[in-house]
């Protein structure tokens, strides 16, 4: 091997890198929270909602799950302005992640809802709760607990998938790596460092999800 690794650029570019990390975290947190909220709503609509709401929700879920995230991002960022909706690249990236995670988490959470024993719904109804109250207070938490590992994995996948938002000039971690390599031509070093950072972020995110799960479901073991 006759290539000399050099990490001296870190001294000059660490602010770019740091900003990239922060934006990736911001995208993940906002996308994760709102995406799961959207997914929960859609899961309710698909599993228990009124008949008229099911076709549009299904169409949304199928459309998003079967096309690449990058294409969705392009349509939101470059396409929406022609409808008069102009978003900054960060807003567009956030929206794309929410919409994307919304569709995936909808399917995951729906599976959790459908695994709920009928008796739970009936018990709720017999206590004079409305269907939405039963969903909110009786069904949702055990359903989330059932699918929490799958949901956690999906959030990590979305975090890693956020790398493509650099294509619309959102200055995330991948943007930072590309920016650094475009200036210094230190592609290996830039990509290696960003890969390690992604790995650490993924590990930390998994731990946080496990922690949140532990808090949400503390002393509520369903078996």
């Amino acid at each position, binding site marked *: 091997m006759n290539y000399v690794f050099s990490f001296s650029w870190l001294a000059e570019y660490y602010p770019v890198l740091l900003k990239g990390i922060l934006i990736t975290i911001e995208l993940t947190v906002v996308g994760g929270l709102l995406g799961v909220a959207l997914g929960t709503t859609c899961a309710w609509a698909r599993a228990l909602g009124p008949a008229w709401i099911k076709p549009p929700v299904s169409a949304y879920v199928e459309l998003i799950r079967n096309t690449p995230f990058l294409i969705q991002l392009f349509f939101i960022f*470059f396409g929406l302005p022609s409808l008069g909706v102009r978003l900054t690249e960060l807003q567009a990236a956030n929206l794309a992640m929410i919409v994307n995670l919304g569709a995936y988490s909808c399917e995951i959470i729906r599976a959790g809802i459908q695994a709920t024993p009928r008796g739970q719904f009936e018990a709720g109804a017999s206590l004079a709760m409305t269907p939405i109250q039963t969903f909110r207070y009786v069904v949702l938490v055990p359903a989330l607990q059932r699918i929490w590992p799958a949901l956690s994995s999906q959030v990590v996948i979305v975090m890693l998938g956020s790398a493509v938002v650099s294509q619309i000039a959102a200055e995330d971690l991948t943007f930072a790596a590309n920016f650094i390599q475009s200036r210094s*031509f230190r592609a290996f070093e830039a990509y290696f460092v960003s890969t390690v950072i992604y790995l650490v972020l993924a590990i930390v995110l998994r731990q946080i999800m496990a922690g949140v799960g532990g808090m949400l479901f503390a002393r509520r073991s369903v078996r």
Partner: protein
Amino acid sequence: MINRRMLLGIAGAAIMAASVAAPVPARADALEDVMSRGVLRVAVPQDFPPFGSVGTDMAPIGYDIDMAILIAEKLGVEAELVPVTSANRIPYLQTGKVDLVISSLGKNAEREAVIDFTDAYAPFFNGVFAPDDVTVSNAEDLSGKVIGVTRGAIEDLELTKIAPSDAVIKRYEDNNGTISAFLSGQVDVVATGNVVAAAILERNPPKRPEMKFLIKNSPCYIGLNKNEPVLVEKVNAIIAEAKADGSLNAISEKWLGAGLPEEL
């Protein structure tokens, strides 16, 4: 569960990778390799018109491609075109998968620490463009404006140098991103090649980009691996010859719509 040990392991791997940096040995003569192989492998762009784009058969075409073919012809070898992106063009060179990078590279000191450059082979007419109603006439006027540019391209490097600190530069992945951002109104101003701007005008868009001012003319260079003096010399000789006999001028006329400028 992941624990501190794993994190330590990762850190260890990073340090190991960093420390395998061995001193660079003088390479075998790359020119000799090319001649004995009978093939010159050149990294060319395919998403950066007019320097590199594709025809309807998806084969690469453009200024950089013609330049690659010209060099191969003068060497008396076949040209093998390897389409690259701005993200992977340098790794292709560094891992010995190509001999030259002809990908409208701009030169700066940082880049020169990593690879070598030949003499300039192409001019780069790039300017700042905006619709009629935006008043910009020099770099200072960019203050407070949002400017779209293609990341890593020459205009990116130059603009970053001359733009005032409160100008916001949005760096897109490729020309299409820059152009789409302009057409969809995400940015008011773009910095790009005059030929790219002309291509936008050809589409008759509602927003017509007008040249506001020319960015300092910085030409393109061919990139090659360090410590290959023989190859550099040979390619420089070919460039000089092509300048002298008018063949480079013809390429410039064909793709940029203008002849080579005096200073090149």
